[in-house]
């Protein structure tokens, strides 16, 4: 089971940090976490993947769902600090085109 750390920083940007494996089980939690932020008006969300050791297609699905809902609400979802395995999955699926990995959480919404 993945732990989730969800917080909102001083600029009003939501930060979700899944830890461990982001698979079918934990993907649902990620969807819920992002949906709750967006529904509460926090439409800019950073998913910090520094502690995500594994991402499968369900995890990818949760990121895409979060991206869509954030954009529909006028915001965006960005990912920061992905591990090598996550970078590989994003590259194979060409999803790094829409989820471009950012180097830091704080700078994820710069530029």
């Amino acid at each position, binding site marked *: 089971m993945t732990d989730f750390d969800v917080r909102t920083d001083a600029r009003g940007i939501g930060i979700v940090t899944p830890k461990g494996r982001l698979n*079918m089980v934990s993907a649902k939690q990620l969807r819920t976490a992002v949906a709750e932020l967006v529904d509460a008006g926090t439409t800019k969300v950073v998913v910090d993947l520094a502690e995500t050791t594994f991402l*499968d*297609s369900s995890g990818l*699905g949760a990121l895409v769902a979060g991206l869509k809902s954030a954009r529909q609400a006028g915001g965006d979802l960005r990912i920061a600090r992905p591990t090598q*395995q996550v970078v590989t999955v994003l590259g194979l699926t*060409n999803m790094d085109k829409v989820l471009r990995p950012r180097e830091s959480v704080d700078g994820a919404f710069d530029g």
Partner: protein
Amino acid sequence: MALVSDGLGPVDERRQRVVESVGILDQAHQERLDRITRMATVAFGVPLASITMLDGELVRFPSAIGMEARPMARRDTFCDRSVRIGGSVVSRDTLTDPRFRDLALVHADPPFRFYAAHPLCDPFGNVMGTFCVYDHEPREFDERDQRLLAEMGAWAEVEVLALAEMSRAHDAQVSMLPSAPIDRGSWHVDGICLPALSVGGDYFDYALEDEVLHFGLGDVMGKGTAAALIGAGMRVALRSAHLAVVHGADLGLVLDRLEQGAASDLDRAGSFVTLFEGVVDLTTGNLRYADAGLGLALLVRADGSYEQLSGGDLPIGVMPGSGFHQHERTVEDGDRVLVFSDGVLDLLDDPDDWMPPLAALLHSADDPRDVLGQIMMLAIDRTPVDDVTALVVCRRPAGRSA
């Protein structure tokens, strides 16, 4: 729907379908039923328990604890009697019970002197079999015991029906895969699909039309029945485009159309699909392909050099309208193509560095069957958590026949 009846009444016929679906249980499935019968022996303090299914003139034991699980003639069994009696049946001493005392089992060594059963019904209320406990000694069975037996029987019923359903869904999915390899001139095509659950979100497909080979592999986000339903739709939609592709339709445009048709379904399901679709003109070796985010296709040349057949396009349903593109290569004599799902990556020592080992495997294998056999062996060794699906297209070296 069966138009020809096998002579059984409608009740027996319906029961038969469930029994046959449950009939071929593998080890893992049988364990699900054994868990209940084993628990019953502990709960009631009896040496014997079984899940018994009526099967024509036989009874079968999908699960049996403390007794042989071989099929028996129906008329010789407690189960047959208790189904005729109806409802829950308890016989505290079978030797003095006129309903059972003539059964050979009552006089066997050791004898079956105590019997209690709860009927197992299909969703239409037809009795499929019984959940039974037995003892070699007569014994008491109070109201609390009867309630417990009914509870465990209800649990067994749910499991039996779920296994039957899973087995049917699995059969339906398998029946949609190509049934035989293609062996045409110097070309040889084959594939495997090993779902992690009974049904999975992966599919592969291939077909020959006017000396043009279509081959494709898709991986629907998610697992199980929901993913399988979406995959089935994708496959049919792609098949319906085969003829247009033979006549030159651009594969990128085909995928654009596919996404237009599927986008709302995928959006509602919160899903997307990664897939590779290719066509080869068998007379020239001209290969056209489009890759929607699968990224797992290798072209290995006769000399062992290789390249990834990537496309750079997103999975279907991620950003509808982002556009797909067709790419071209030539498959020469002795070249081979492998397309696979990410479940195969889990089988490798280093999933991030998948190209060298898979290219070597593809290059050194005897034929497609050998490639798939080696992948299957890896899957058996490593018990994959995701569906493992692979498709191989080989063009034999010039001058070599089958």
